[in-house]
């Protein structure tokens, strides 16, 4: 019994050995997949980053270009003894910084292993060259080329947007498209056109030997993949005009938008205060400053701020009145310092009375539009005021108000236009009448629209009844824009009603001082500017100054909306700013007779009127 137990145990030992050797045979001889994995282990993929596409302005000027910088890469395992002082001197960093970094790498040595980590980002070529000369003294340190954004032209900070390194959230949101260390456009055009701009990463494969030294290129680089540069993009922006617009808006809070009416291309889009391009280039280090700025420079007022339009909106009500048949160009209404209903009064300024439609636009009469709006709502065609208001709402929306226009600009907001259901909710079903909502007649009350909406309204009137969806990217090279930007968008108001409104706007500007025209300050000889002022109440302080205008009167080339918070009357700040922009665009320079106006605008500072939130 005992003897054969010994044999059984020996046989068991033999079987166990056979299992081990058999397994060894399988993974070393039969199964080749482990060898393939092993070669992957010993190949080093070095990422080649593509250069990002360049953004041009409409005239071919470079708005956003690229420049070469260098990242300093460290492979902690390869770092030996080195002269820390010399390295700090060359790189211009403090000794504490270097010591902290090296201690950090030592603490995480297991996690880092044989990998390389980025120690310094975006060294200038000058610094890098200094380092490269002495690099042999610092084993384990090397530079990696990287192209970053450069802005030759200080224009369009907000609309260009910034590029920064992707964080984990961004990587998760775009499954499989990004890895840590990649850069991506985060706002503005950079974000909207990320797919075209980013290009495609490539890689170079190297082999390392058993000492973890890079030995050679894998198959002489035939398996490497070249990086494909991003596509260039042409913006509709006019760089010079944009820059001039930003100068006009400096030290004021508000927005300035210019559109080419015949195409819908946005020529200028200023949100003030905005982001300087110097900040864009190195967004990361300014990030907290920007977040804490009480004036919110990241907030793009031109497409995101819902403002009351003020008297500018009278144009829309006039057009709707004509279309609805309750108003003709010859209709006259009286005005004695306002419109009286019940015990209330909606005030107006001093002007002659009565006025017809053209004159009402020219002199911006409040009472006139109370009559007009009331006749729109109290129209026998409709069963109720509610139904009439819904019809009015429909007209207003056809101008693009109360909804996103559908521009290619990211983060555009729609604003608000009230309908009957809204007032039913506020006052109770049917418990409101025309006079309850009378302030809508002069663009006050529950209306919110962005400066882009106002510019689009101006463009619509300039075109006598239609607009193109405003957009910021043009066709160029490999980039084509959506065909919707080439389609005319008609409003529900017949094009035949527009000329009389245009005439009124012409007279508002060009009737000469003392005539009662509200915007004579905007007149420029020979440019035939047509405009409409607005003064919108601002519960936080002084009124907002609003002005829209286009020029020339026939075949308009530019339509502008200016909105200056706390700028008081439209003629005070918005009209000079918008007209200067028009003059700059059409004439190329400001005439000597208007230099005083330019100086006043450039030197004007309204910042202390604004209470930061």
């Amino acid at each position, binding site marked *: *019994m*005992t003897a054969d*137990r*010994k044999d059984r*145990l*020996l046989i*068991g*030992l*033999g079987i*166990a*050995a056979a*299992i*081990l*050797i058999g*397994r*060894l*045979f399988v*993974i*070393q*001889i039969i*199964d080749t*997949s*482990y*060898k393939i*994995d*092993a*070669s992957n*282990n*010993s190949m080093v993929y070095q990422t080649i980053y593509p250069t990002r596409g360049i953004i041009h302005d409409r005239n071919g000027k470079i708005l956003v270009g690229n420049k070469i910088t260098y990242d300093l890469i460290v492979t902690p*395992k390869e770092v030996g003894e080195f002269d820390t002082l010399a390295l700090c001197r060359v790189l211009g960093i403090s000794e504490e910084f270097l010591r902290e970094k090296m201690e950090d790498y030592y603490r995480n040595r297991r996690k880092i*292993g*044989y990998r390389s980590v980025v120690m310094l980002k975006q060294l200038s070529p000058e610094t890098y060259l200094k380092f490269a000369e002495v690099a042999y003294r610092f084993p384990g340190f090397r530079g990696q080329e990287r192209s970053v954004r450069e802005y030759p032209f200080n224009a369009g900070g907000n609309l260009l947007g910034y590029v920064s390194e992707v964080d984990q959230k961004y990587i998760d949101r775009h499954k499989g498209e990004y890895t840590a260390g990649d850069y991506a456009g985060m706002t503005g055009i950079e974000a909207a056109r990320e797919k075209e701009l980013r290009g495609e990463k490539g890689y170079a494969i190297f082999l*390392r*030997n*058993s*000492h*973890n030294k890079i030995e050679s290129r894998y198959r002489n680089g035939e398996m490497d993949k070249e990086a494909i540069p991003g596509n260039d993009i042409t913006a509709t922006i006019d760089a010079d005009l944009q820059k001039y617009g930003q100068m006009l808006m400096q030290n004021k809070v508000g927005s300035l938008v210019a559109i080419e009416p015949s195409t819908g291309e946005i020529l200028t889009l200023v949100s003030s205060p905005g982001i300087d391009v110097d900040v864009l280039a190195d967004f990361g280090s300014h990030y907290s400053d920007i977040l804490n700025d009480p004036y919110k420079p990241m907030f793009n007022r031109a497409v995101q701020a819902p403002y009351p339009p003020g008297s500018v909106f009278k144009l829309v009500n006039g057009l709707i009145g004509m279309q609805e048949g309750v108003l003709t160009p010859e209709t006259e209404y009286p005005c004695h310092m306002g419109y009286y209903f019940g015990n209330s009064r909606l005030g107006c300024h001093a002007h002659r009375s009565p006025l017809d439609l053209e004159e009402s636009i020219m002199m911006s009469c409040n009472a006139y539009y109370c009559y007009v709006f009331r006749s729109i709502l109290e129209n026998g065609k409709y069963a109720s005021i509610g139904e009439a208001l819904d019809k009015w709402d429909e007209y207003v929306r056809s101008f693009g108000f109360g909804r996103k226009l559908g521009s290619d600009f990211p983060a555009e907001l729609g604003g608000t236009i009230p309908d009957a259901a809204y007032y039913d909710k506020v006052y109770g079903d049917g418990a409101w009448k025309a006079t309850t909502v009378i302030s809508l007649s002069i663009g006050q009350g529950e209306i919110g629209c962005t400066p882009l909406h106002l510019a689009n309204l101006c463009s619509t009137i300039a075109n006598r009844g239609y607009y193109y969806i405003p957009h910021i990217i043009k066709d160029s090279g490999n980039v084509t824009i959506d065909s919707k930007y080439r389609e005319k968008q008609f409003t529900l108001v017949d094009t035949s009603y527009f000329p009389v409104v245009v005439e009124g706007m012409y007279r508002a500007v060009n009737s000469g001082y003392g005539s009662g025209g509200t915007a004579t300050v905007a007149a420029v000889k020979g440019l035939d500017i047509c405009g409409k002022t607005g003064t919108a109440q601002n519960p936080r302080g002084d009124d907002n100054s609003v002005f829209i205008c286009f020029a020339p009167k026939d075949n308009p080339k530019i339509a502008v909306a200016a909105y200056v918070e706390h700028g008081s009357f439209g003629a005070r700040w918005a009209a000079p700013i918008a007209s200067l922009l028009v003059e700059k665009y059409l004439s190329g320079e400001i005439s000597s007779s208007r230099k005083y106006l330019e100086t006043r605008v450039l030197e004007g500072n309204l910042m202390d009127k604004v209470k930061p939130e």
Partner: protein
Amino acid sequence: MGFWNKGLIRNVDWWLVACYIVLIFIGWMNIYASIHSSGTESIFDLTGRSGKQFIWMGASIVSAILILTVINPRIYDSISLPVYLLTIVLLVAVIFLGTEVKGSRSWFEFGPIRFQPAEISKISTSLLIATVMSQFGFKMNRARDFLTVAAAILVPMLIIIAQSETGSALVYVGFIFVLYREGLSGWLIFLIGMFIALFILTLTASPYAAVMVLAIVASFCNSSYTGAMKRWWTAYLPAFAVLGGLPFLLDHIASVTGGEESFAGRTEPLYILLAACAAVIPFLLFRAYRKRKPFTLLAAGSFIAGVILVFSTEFIFENVLQDHQRQRIEVLLGMKEDPSGVGYNVNQSMIAIGSGGLAGKGFLHGTQTTYGFVPEQSTDFIFCTVGEEWGFLGAASVILIYVFLIGRIIVQSEKSTESFTRIYGYCVASCIFMHLFINIGMTMGIMPVIGIPLPFVSYGGSSLLAFTVLLFIFIALKANDRHNFR
């Protein structure tokens, strides 16, 4: 004491000594190979692990010579109990006084020297087993004797489990081979193996399959032992065939008669199977009782114990095992795929071994182990370096050297005239075998990741020294054999 044995040179088993020398040098070279990329210049560089190992090798060889020449082997029998008790004290003390390393308190630290009482415990337990079992009149089948040996094994084992070193404790399971050699019923080993298989089967397949296999094995053993094979073929096998098809049948009926909600869809096949067993077993037991067949009682008892195990498997798995142990088992059984988590080590280790091919990449030319892809590469995963740099030929040779060593110990033990030497020899063989199989099995993904060293080869002073003492006590005992007839 001096040279107590004049015939030392003649009587020492030089084959074992040769195996030992070869293995420690293989270990030394591979430790150097696994660390040489991290800046260690020479294999003797004392700041590197290969240099330190060299010192330990020297210390071990000196210890081996002392054991062979100075210490009289006669004393082992008499000091085994005090040594054992002292070790137990150390094992308990380390839980409270030890330094925490990787989540377990099992190391004593004295300046630069660290040692694990668990290493000494292997030696002291082996000695005590030998002492107890070599006593005159010891009978394995007598309950008191069996329980004494079982306690000698289980006490240190349980303390080591309490230190969260379940891996090291697993080695003690190997002593069951010693007990087997000395007369323990083979059925016990079979039973333990069966229960481990059931545990795995329940986790990987289903409780139904586990109970099914259990029933087949239990009835087959019972029938073959009691000589009723004919009935097994004619009655049991068809019944099992029907029961085996039951889940598929129920599935089919459920899909025909209207899905999950129908009677067939809601019936668990497992309960039908258990009902059938419950109906048959009392009948069998009654007949066994009438015909005086104790084995049937045993088989039925084992079956019921097995069923209980199957039902408690989930509980054991979720509540008794620690997180990392559960994960390791899950990865090993292929229940979870995670090449970067727990399975990372094993995956990298298999890549390293696999990339060695037939002849290997050559000494110091491995790429996988030297980059740090394989963690613990000079300690627990040293076999990766062997596999990668020396290939199939080298790695298989290393395994064969171990097999020769273990086989030689067994053969020499059998030849010994003294039962103390024989039993101690079997203990040594079992220890080395368990370490070998678990460690190498782990690097090739057929054992869960259990951090125990490869004897004589892995880096680590206390482990090398302990195995040296373990082996050379046997060599000394054996060399002294013929001159000490009782």
